[in-house]
């Protein structure tokens, strides 16, 4: 009862409009002549954003105001205010599908004008990252915060005890899997209960087998891409790994978010886990000793005969700042965005454990908590011919639930390849 009422009133609150929900903020962009509002996801990263806003305000007449929204509510709040008079001038997002509906509604400012005035807004960032906020050949975002490529992590001791080395190819991964199973160790830890960790396996397999083109075609609306031979091959290959017991049998009852799957690796009950680069700090937080000496990482194995470059990576390319078309202070906004490749920004991000994607980042690696890890990651992203944004963020938000459902069902046998292909073809692409 309570939950239904809550949901109904929440819908009502949205219907009744943003006026009531958002009037608590201080002077909005249209009221005060001298402010630009910067809306960001509220978390530990705000430390750097606050610092940058202060730096900006020291020299600028038009003052920047930082508005933070607690993480869990960020997207809902953004969706609510973006087409209202309370809309921010600049806002945090994930690039790709996360801003697509705003672009379609003609709310965002293409940043090509800014870039023409200051090419540094583009050239100072790694291209593979910058490109994931390019929609219809126009740039809509400037990278902020850090990049999060997905890596294959492992427990060094478990591999050493079994006389194994980290696999460089898919065949080696299969052989390693077999050897670990024989020793009674779950080869690969998977937080299937969260669904998105399972998706990472699809992202890499499709990239290695078909190359980045297949997913881009599918995202562009070509539904046949999902039914192609490469797509089927990726599914078969993946299914073989699942059926070989590489993930054990209870992965859908395990979560990454509650610490279940990382604990399996840290405690030596499993050997590998495919996860975003935040895995290092996750382990450092929960199992500091293991993170220090026992945690190893490699890129995703190469697949012989695959069309994808083994140097390709997938993951969260970065977060971005996008600009609202109706901002009254475009000049100041452009000046604010320039700070995203400043030395101060890079140093501050590294200090809190993020890996910024500016070209000057390598100059400051000594500031990182783990310089070698930062360096490897940066090199990986820099050398990557393609950096595929996570599928669930590349697609519009409406595709997320059906995509996660199909992913989970294919892994647990609820859907066969045909069923999976059909489910992916039914996803909305715009």
């Amino acid at each position, binding site marked *: 009862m309570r939950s*239904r009422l809550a949901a109904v009133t929440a819908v009502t609150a949205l219907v009744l409009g943003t006026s009531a929900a958002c009037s608590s903020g201080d002077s909005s962009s249209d009221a005060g002549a001298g402010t630009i509002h910067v809306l960001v996801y509220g978390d530990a990263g705000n430390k750097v954003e606050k610092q940058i806003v202060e730096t900006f305000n020291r020299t600028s007449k038009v003052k920047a105001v930082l508005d933070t929204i607690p993480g869990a509510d960020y997207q809902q709040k953004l969706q609510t205010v973006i087409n209202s008079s309370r809309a921010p001038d600049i806002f945090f997002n994930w690039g790709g599908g996360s801003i697509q509906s705003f672009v379609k509604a003609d709310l965002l400012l293409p940043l090509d004008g800014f870039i023409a005035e200051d090419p540094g807004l583009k050239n100072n960032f790694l291209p593979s990252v910058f490109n994931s906020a390019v929609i219809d050949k126009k740039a809509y975002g400037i990278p902020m915060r850090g990049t999060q490529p997905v890596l294959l992590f492992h427990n060094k001791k478990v591999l050493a005890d079994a006389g194994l080395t980290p696999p460089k190819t898919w065949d080696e991964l299969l052989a390693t899997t077999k050897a670990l199973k024989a020793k009674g160790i779950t080869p690969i830890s998977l937080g299937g209960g969260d669904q998105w960790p399972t998706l990472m396996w699809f992202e890499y397999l499709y990239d290695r087998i078909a190359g980045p083109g297949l997913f881009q075609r599918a995202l562009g609306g070509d539904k046949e891409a999902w039914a192609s031979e490469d797509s089927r091959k990726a599914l078969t290959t993946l299914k073989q790994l699942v059926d070989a017991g590489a993930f054990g*049998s*209870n992965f859908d009852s395990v*979560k990454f978010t509650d610490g279940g799957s990382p*604990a399996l690796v840290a405690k030596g*009950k499993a050997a590998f886990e495919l996860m975003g680069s935040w895995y290092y700090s996750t382990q450092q937080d929960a199992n500091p000793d293991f993170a220090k000496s026992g945690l190893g990482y490699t890129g995703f194995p190469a697949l012989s005969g695959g069309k994808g470059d083994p140097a390709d990576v997938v993951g969260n390319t970065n977060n971005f700042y996008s600009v609202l078309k109706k901002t009254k202070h475009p000049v100041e906004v452009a000046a604010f965005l320039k700070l995203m490749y400043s030395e101060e920004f890079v140093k501050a991000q590294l200090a809190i454990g993020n890996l910024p994607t500016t070209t000057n980042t390598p100059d400051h690696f000594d500031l990182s908590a783990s310089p070698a890890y930062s360096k490897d990651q940066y090199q990986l992203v820099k050398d990557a011919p393609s950096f595929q944004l996570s599928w669930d963020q590349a697609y519009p938000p409406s595709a997320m639930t059906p995509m996660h459902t199909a992913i989970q069902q294919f892994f647990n046998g609820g859907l066969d390849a045909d069923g999976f292909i059909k489910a992916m073809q039914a996803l909305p692409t715009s």
Partner: protein
Amino acid sequence: MTRATGRGAVATRPGLVWAVPAAVFFGMFALTPLLLVAVLSFTSWDGIGDPHFNGLDNWTALFHDPVMLQSVWTTLLLTALGVVTQTPVSILIGVWAAGKQRNRAVLSAVYFVPLLLSATAVSVVWRAVLDPNFGVPAQLTWLFGDGNLLGTKSGAIGVLTFVGVWQFTPLHALIYQGGARAIPQVLYQAAAVDGAGRVRQFLHITLPQLRNTVITSVILMVVGGLTTFDTVLILTQGGPGTDTTVTSYYMYQKAFKSFDFGTGSAIALVLVVVATLISLAVVRLSGYDRMRGTAEGL
């Protein structure tokens, strides 16, 4: 001649004015939102800009949506399982707790604790307890096998039912405790004189006397079961696949994860209609609407 002197007892009933505050609140916080949701269900709206009317599109799509149909069945199944499991346990505990011994009062208070915890906290705790590798299933492998409780349909539904029992039995036991205390002692004394044992007393006095309490409790369980949300959100996220996607969770997914408020509103309305129909049916079939007392003939 005033009504008071003319009609006797009727005059002591409260007048219509007394209903005004409640009616105003109900109108503001229940009817108005409901109407707005009804309007929204005929629009396509992603939260940006204005909703656009799209006629019956949401509704026709919903009736052809296998997940919607499945979600209604799952909701009904979970509700039925809730009633079937919670009722007997609640009655036994409630009747037991209606006794007079001091230790029972203390135990009853302890027993009441689960209800005081938020459903979110409860779900998080159960999630940890049921972790297949580090929780209880890892210790009791003979019972749980590989511990894939939340990864299979039957397992996930079983867990949701179990957590429901754990969380809501205290409330219903409390209701039954009150009901059992209201049963006149005379009946038991008479039965004891006639030589009826405790079991017979329970079956022939306590249960029949608790009839209206059962109906109250069942209606609460049904309404609660039909709108189960928080435990699904945290324990299963509607998974594995869509196996535990109950209707309220499906509404949340559509409206707040997919930003499809039109479809979300349509699902909300379906839920309102189904819940109302079932509640009415329970009231009708049980004869609760006739307000028959259990104290007749005393």
